[in-house]
């Protein structure tokens, strides 16, 4: 099953990238995520591994994921190592000066689970899509608020100088 969500954020891609690539900030804006821990020595970049859990229905599902693409500040993709099969991708594109289209994609399933897996994937899809939609919205609000604070700080610094 493939689901996605997107939004336009009033901030440059670099500002969005700094949030999505920082493992310590994922719990702050990702909807439904109950665990996001660095697993291994590498905290970010290709090969970084995280233990991630997402509440879907009556279970927290997920497992160990590994970053397989890390192209600053445009693409960040991961794939599952254990747990539910999944491929995910952040895709950032500048649509105009200081504005970024943010897309979050997720493909998931349980290989070999047959009809049960197919039904469960479809039943879970609205829940997962809802999490994705809230995630990009919360990410947008977070990044835009940081931009406002950064501009205000810059103004105060200029005035006091």
């Amino acid at each position, binding site marked *: 099953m493939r689901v996605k969500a997107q939004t336009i954020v009033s901030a440059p891609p670099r500002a969005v990238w700094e949030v999505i690539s920082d493992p310590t900030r994922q719990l702050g804006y990702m909807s439904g995520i109950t*665990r996001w821990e660095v697993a291994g020595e590498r905290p970010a970049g290709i090969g970084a591994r995280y233990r991630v*859990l997402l509440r*879907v*229905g*009556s*279970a*927290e*599902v*997920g*497992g*160990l994921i590994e970053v397989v693409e890390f192209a600053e500040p445009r693409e960040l993709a991961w794939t599952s190592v*254990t*747990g*539910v099969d999944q491929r995910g991708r952040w895709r950032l594109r500048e649509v105009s000066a200081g504005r970024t289209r943010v897309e979050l994609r997720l493909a998931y399933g*349980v290989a*070999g*689970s*047959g009809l*049960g*897996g197919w*039904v*469960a*994937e479809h*039943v*879970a899809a609205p829940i997962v899509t809802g999490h994705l939609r809230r995630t990009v919205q919360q990410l947008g609000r977070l990044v835009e608020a940081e931009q406002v604070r950064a501009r205000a700080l810059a103004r105060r610094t200029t005035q006091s100088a």
Partner: protein
Amino acid sequence: MLSRALRGVADAAQRRIPRADLDERDPDFIRERLPWMWLVASIWFRGEVRGLGNIPDSGPVLLVGNHSGGNVTPDTIVFTLAFNAYFGVERAFYQLAHNLVLAMPALGSLRKFGTVAASPQNARKALESDAALLVYPGGDYEVHRPTWARNRVDFDNRKGFIRLALEQDVPLVPVVSIGGQETALFLNRGDRLARLLALDRMFRLKVLPISIAAPWGLNIGDMLGHVPLPAKITIETLPAIDVRAEFGPDPDLDEVYDYIVGLMQDTLDALAAERRLPILG
């Protein structure tokens, strides 16, 4: 005549009880069935499992649960799904079940889920292999308690789980569930009837439960199970208890038992207070 026939059935059932083989647990089998379990747990029982983070991330651990729902035990379905989804099927997880459950031909696949016959030897083997082990001390006695005693933890004074935790020196994690006893109308354990028919001696059955359950109506024995009502199942996992650290190197079993059952009862009372309506939760 009846006694001889019952003994014959008992012998046949005993012969069907598989020897405990922890290797029968099959992670791929579990993984492929998690979607079905997720559908049942999420849609039918609207399961909610809290506090899984209280279970140590690795190493042997004894999970001690209160048990509900007759021979169809929704709390086990919901918790097994939650545990396997949370920790991954790679982490060995075993459950102890009554001998007769494993002897039923249709339930042979339970062994692939890591279900082994309830015995001190099997429990020791599981914990010695560094696995997580789920036990229900109340067993058949608790699982068939009347519906009006649904919000009561009733281990029938069985303390073997504490001896096991001490002997294996493993943390003990209480797992409290609510809702299972609303999946049918459980009327009576039928413990006197079970004694009268010598079921205890022949099948290790302390009860011959009487309930009103779908699709049978009056359901005596619950041997074929039943279709559970879609009661909301809520499960709360409590912080791990290191029995020796909390009660000293040579703890008094009665004191530990009272403490753990009291803690679980307090949690069950709190979960009951959250519920507005039976079944709906």
